[in-house]
C-alpha cells in the first residue's frame, strides 16, 4: 500500500486523486473482500481512498421497476455523499452505469440535475478506472489457476468494459484465462427480474453454468456481484467444484479466501 490520505496535501488531484469508493450494497453485505480489494488496487495507482459512511444503494431496484421518484430519493443521498470527490469509483459496471443515469432522474429539478451530471462525469467502474484513467496495465499478483471470465452486460454495453480486465488478468502470475463461449450473453440475473421470472432466469443461468463447465476452468471471474451471486448460486446448486470471485479480488492478490458461496474456512471448494 503506497499512500494514505495524509500525504495528499502537497499533490495535485490528478497525481494523487481523492477517490470516494461506492462499494455497492451487494458487496457491502455479501462480499466485503471486494471492497477491500478495490481499496488496495486504488491505493496502488496512487489514489487516496475514502469511504463515505452515508452511502447506501445506487437505486437500481427502484429505477428499473419504474419508481423514478424513489430512485431519485436514493440518488440524492448518493450525490450528497460523493459529489465532493475527484472521482467516484464503483466495483460494479451495473451500479456505475446507474450513477451515470442519475441526471435522467432529475428532469424537473435543474439544480439536482446539475449536481447529478457533475458527479456522473467523474464516476467510473473500478477496472476501467484503473486502466483507462490511471493507466494501469499490470498488477503484481499471482493466482496459479485456470479461470474463465463472464462479461457482465451493463459494464460491457454501457461502459465498454471488455479488454481492460483481460489485460490486467494477463499480468497475474500463473493465471490462465480460458475464454467462455457466449461470455457476452446475459447470465439471467437482471436485478428483480431473477425473482419475478425465476424459471426464465433459471434457464439462463443454467446455460451459463454449462458454458462455464465447458471451459474446464475451476474458477469464474466477473466484475459485478449481482451476476456473480447468481452464477455462484447455480454452480452451488449443481454441486460442482467451481469457485466464483470478483475479478478485483484476484487482481489485488486477495482471492485467498473461500469463493462466493464456498464453505467458510475452506479456501474454496475447488482446492
Amino acid at each position, binding site marked *: 500500500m503506497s499512500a494514505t490520505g495524509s500525504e495528499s496535501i502537497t499533490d495535485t488531484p490528478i497525481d494523487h486523486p481523492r477517490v470516494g469508493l461506492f462499494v455497492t*450494497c451487494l*458487496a*457491502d*453485505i*455479501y*462480499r*466485503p*473482500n*471486494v*471492497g*477491500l480489494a478495490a481499496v488496495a488496487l486504488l491505493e496502488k495507482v496512487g489514489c487516496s481512498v475514502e*469511504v463515505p*459512511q*452515508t452511502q*447506501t*444503494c445506487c437505486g437500481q431496484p*427502484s429505477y*428499473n*421497476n*419504474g*419508481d*423514478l421518484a*424513489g430512485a431519485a*430519493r*436514493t440518488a440524492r443521498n448518493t450525490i450528497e*455523499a460523493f459529489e465532493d470527490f475527484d472521482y467516484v469509483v464503483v466495483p460494479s459496471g451495473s451500479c456505475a452505469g446507474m450513477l451515470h443515469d442519475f441526471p435522467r432522474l432529475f428532469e424537473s429539478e435543474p439544480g439536482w440535475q446539475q449536481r447529478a451530471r457533475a458527479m456522473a462525469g467523474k464516476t467510473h467502474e473500478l477496472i476501467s478506472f484503473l486502466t483507462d484513467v490511471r493507466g494501469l496495465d499490470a498488477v503484481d499478483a499471482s493466482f496459479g489457476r485456470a479461470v474463465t471470465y463472464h462479461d457482465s*452486460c*451493463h459494464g460491457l*454495453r*454501457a461502459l465498454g468494459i471488455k479488454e481492460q480486465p483481460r489485460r490486467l488478468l494477463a499480468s497475474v502470475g500463473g493465471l490462465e484465462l480460458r475464454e467462455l463461449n457466449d461470455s*457476452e*450473453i*446475459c447470465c*439471467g440475473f437482471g*436485478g428483480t*427480474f*431473477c*425473482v*419475478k*421470472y*425465476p*424459471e*426464465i*432466469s*433459471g434457464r*439462463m*443461468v443454467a*446455460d451459463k453454468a454449462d458454458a462455464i463447465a465447458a471451459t474446464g476452468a475451476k474458477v469464474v471471474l466477473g466484475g459485478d456481484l449481482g451476476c456473480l*451471486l447468481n452464477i*455462484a*448460486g*447455480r454452480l*452451488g*446448486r449443481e454441486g460442482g467444484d467451481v469457485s*466464483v470471485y470478483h475479478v478485483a479480488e484476484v487482481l489485488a492478490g486477495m482471492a485467498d479466501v*473461500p469463493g462466493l*458461496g464456498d*464453505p*467458510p474456512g*475452506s479456501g474454496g471448494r475447488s482446492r
Partner: protein
Amino acid sequence: MESLSHAFKERSVHALKDETLQVALHRAKDGFAVKRAKAVEGLPEFDALRDRAVAIKNHTLENLDHYLERYADAVERSGGKVHWASSAEDARRIVVEICRAAGAKMITKGKSMVGEEVGVNGALEGAGFEVVETDLGEYIIQLAHEPPSHIIVPAVHKTRGQIADLFHENHQKYGLTRKLSEVPEMVNEARQVLRSKYLDADVGITGANFLIAESGTSVIVTNEGNGDLTCSLPRVHIVTAGIEKVVPTAEDATTLLRLLARSATGQDLTTYTTFSTGPKRADDTDGPEEYHVVLVDSGRSTMLADQFREMLRCIRCGACMNHCPVYGAIGGHAYGWVYPGPMGSVLTPLSVGLKEAGNLPNACTLNGHCAEVCPVRIPLPDLLRTLRHREYQLKLGLKPLRWGLAAWVWFTSHPRIYRLGTRVQARMLATLAGRKGRFTRMPLAGGWFKGGRDLPAPQGETFMAVWARRQKERGQ
C-alpha cells in the same frame, strides 16, 4: 389478433418445459447471431449506415403527414387507390370490401406482419374467402393454425419432424401421400401445392417493407420469390402497411435495405427485392388490374406523439429477438401477441394495453443486447423501462413489489438505520448459513430458489464495518 399476453408467465413456463420447442429454439439460437456478425464485419460502413438510417427515419417521422400525402398522391397518379385505416377493425373491413367488390374466391398472401396484427386472415375466412399463405413459414403455421413466433421466421418454433407431419396430413388431398423427411423435398412439395393456388388466386395481399413517397412504390423483400407471384399474378393486388413504412425516396429505401437483410438473416440482400407501383399499364406484359394500398394507423399516431416515437423507426428485422436471451429461452408464442421479443415487449403493451401486457416490459434483464444490434438504434431497454414507469404510475404492478420498493427507498435514504440493518443482516445470514456457506432455501425469498439455484451467504461482516474498524486501527 387477440392477445394472450396476460398469461405470459404461465406461457413462458410452459415453453421452457416444451422439449420440442426447446430443440427448435436451440437450433435457431446461434445461427442468426453468427450470420449477422459476419455480415456486419464484411461491411465497414455498417455503423455509418445505421446513423444514416436513423436520420432518414427520424426525418420522415417528423414530417410523416407530408410524406404520407406525397406517397398517397403518387399511388393515385400511378392508377392505384389508397385506403386509410385508423384501426385494425377498419383495416379488416376495407380488405374484405375490396375482395368482395373484386368478386374474389381465392386469395394468396405474402408474409405481412401488419396483416397478422390486424387479423386479416380471420376476417377474410370469416367472410367466406379461401386464403392461402405463400411464404413457406407462414404456410406452415397456417396449416398448424398457429400465429407466427418470430417476425421474419414465423415457423422457427417448428422442428423438421413437425413440419413433415403437417404436410403429410394436409397434402394428401392433392394426391401427395408420401411422408417426407428431407428439407428440399418438403420445400418442393409446398411449391407444388402453392403453384396452383397462385394461378387460381383472384387477389394477392402483401405487406410492405418500405413505401417510397416520391414514386408511390411499395417494396417487399423475400427469399422465396413468393412475393413476386402474389403481387403480379392475381387480378387485384392489395398492399397492407403501417403508416411508419413510408420513406421519402428510393435512395432512402436502398439505404435501409442494405441494413435490413444483414441485420435479419446476415444476407447482403434478400434473394428477391420486389418493387411494385400501381396496376398494370397499357404496355405492361403482366401485373394486376387493380392496385390498392391499405395504410394502417392502429395506434401508431399515438406512439408518434409520445415518448415511444423512436419505436416507429423499427424496420422489423428481428435482430433484437435473435439476440434476446429471454426470447431464446421461451420463443415467440409465450409473448402472447403478434410481435415477440424486445420490439414486441414495447409494441404489445402500447397496442393491447399495459394491464393486459404488463409482464412483457418487465420480463427483461435490461442487458442491452437488443439495442446494441438494432440497425436503427432504438433504445429498447430505455423504452421498456419507460413502460415500467408508466405501469408504476398507474399502480398496475404487483402490490408486494411496490411495498418492498417503498421500504427499500426509505431504508436507503436513512443511512444510519441502513448501516445498522445491513450489519445485522450480514451477520445473521452468515451465521444461519453456517459451515455450508450458502442457502438452499429461505423463507420469503422463494423466487430466487425457484430459479434452481442456491444463495451464497455473506462473509459475515459488512464492508462498512470492516472499514470503520480498520480506520480506527489506523488512528483515523
